[in-house]
């Protein structure tokens, strides 16, 4: 009983860690759950590298699920991850030809949750892909200015000083231009 409790505590810790972008949580995730999933992939005609890719994508699915809306783990984290990675691997094996039948479900609830998570992940991925690409295409110093202002919530005075603008108005103008460029990049696609 106590072991189960500590297990679920570990799961919760990891989930909170992921939401706040904690490296330790990711490491823990690898240590605990990578081996069985790698084994599953390798036993099903996968290579080691493919296993690593699948696990990374699985973690991204989990991340999207955790950051998006209020996620409540219904089963053990391991079960969830296993179901997700199995779903992903099957999908890759059939190369999207949808030979994967939903009636092939061994454990309904787990697989429904996994299915939902994967779909959610795909939507988020599609949404954010534009933005990520736009950010990558933006270049310096715009990226840093926007990052400092919007993400780190720095004041315009700080930014002015950091980038050596003569006055805050110049910095504000620069920031505005950068934002417009980003919007242009984002909406163009």
């Amino acid at each position, binding site marked *: 009983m106590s072991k189960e409790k500590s297990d679920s505590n570990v799961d919760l810790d990891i989930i909170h860690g992921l939401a706040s972008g904690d490296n330790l949580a990711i490491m823990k995730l690898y240590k605990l759950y990578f081996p069985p999933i790698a084994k599953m992939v390798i036993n099903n005609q996968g290579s080691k590298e493919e296993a*690593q890719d699948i696990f990374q994508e699985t973690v991204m699915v989990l991340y999207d699920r955790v950051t998006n809306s209020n996620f409540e783990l219904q089963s053990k984290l391991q079960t969830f991850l296993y179901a997700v990675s199995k779903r992903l691997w099957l999908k890759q094996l059939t190369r999207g030809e949808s030979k994967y039948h939903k009636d092939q479900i061994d454990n309904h609830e787990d697989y429904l949750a996994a299915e939902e998570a994967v779909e959610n992940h795909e939507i988020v991925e599609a949404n954010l892909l534009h933005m990520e690409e736009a950010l990558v295409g933006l270049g310096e110093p715009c990226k840093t200015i926007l990052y400092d202002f919007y993400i780190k919530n720095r004041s315009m005075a700080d930014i002015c000083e950091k980038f050596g603008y003569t006055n805050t108005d110049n910095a504000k103008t620069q920031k505005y231009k950068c934002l417009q460029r980003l919007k242009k990049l*984002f909406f163009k696609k």
Partner: protein
Amino acid sequence: MRKLNQQEFIEWADAYLRGELSDEQRVWFEGYCKEHPDEATKFEEHAAFLSTFKAAEARLDFKKSLSETAHHYHTTHRTERTRVVSLWDRLKLNAAVAAAIAIVSVFSTLWLTGYYSNLRKTTSDYSALRRDMNTVKRNVNAHNAAIKSISSHKDNVETMHYGATGFMITKNGYVVTNYHVITGADSVHLQNHKGQSFKADIIFTNPEKDLAILRINDSTFRSLKNIPYTFKKQDSDLGEDIYTIGFPRDEAVYGQGYLSSATGYAGDTLAYQISIPVNPGNSGGPVLDKDGNVIGIISGKQKGIDGAAFAIKTKALLETLNSIPADSLQGNIVLSNKNSLSALPRTDQIKKLQDYIYIVKVY
């Protein structure tokens, strides 16, 4: 209320979203948005855009740390394996040296303890009955040393390697013994029971039948009286009473027994199995039946089985004699066909026989 330009509006919106505005300013901005619905939608769009931007930024960040962690995880797991390999690399030389020492010590120990010579000996459980004189020789040498230390008198004792038995087949000096007795011989001497020693030549050998024909070649040798025994060509019957005289030591030793099987070692049809106690030195001795006919020549015995000695049949001897090329003979071999033993009691038979049986000394 004047309309703000784009940049000013974005600045206001940012400040509003960041909560940097005073209450008064907030009320003003909200009012401004209400007044201009198109500006309100612009604000909504801006807010949505920013949240997408933030989410994407966080996601990128997470992706980066995820791939870093994955890289770290996989490399640490790989290095664990390479450490084992490097350990092997480091200890390879030591392992090779240890293995070499182990191999050398195993085989040298086996060699030192005489394992291989035992192995060769035990591969056959047949033992030829020549007498190994090395122990005797060693004793003699020790005696010599003792004698020499007493006086400077030189005692020239030749080294004798093997001893066995042989017997006459003709009165003019042909003697038969076993091939295994005279293999590797430098010279062969025959000594009769009176102690006279004659030099002998090897006339013919037959390794398959384990027979050797010698001829006494010594000026001191005088032809003997007619050979008292005959050679029985037919196979003898099982259970027949037989006896032999041989030299397992330097005195003639009588042995008595019976014919126990019509074939020899491993089914050899050219030999009998006989039940007579025989010892090294008995090789080459004649096996006679109760009438004084030679029925065989003692050749060996089976180790580990009591009373299983073997004698080569007379038939094999006769075949061997017939196969001798005429050039190697000096005078024909004429076997005696008159048996003067048959009517005599055993003790008298033996007395008569003794003159014709020799110790074969191989140097």
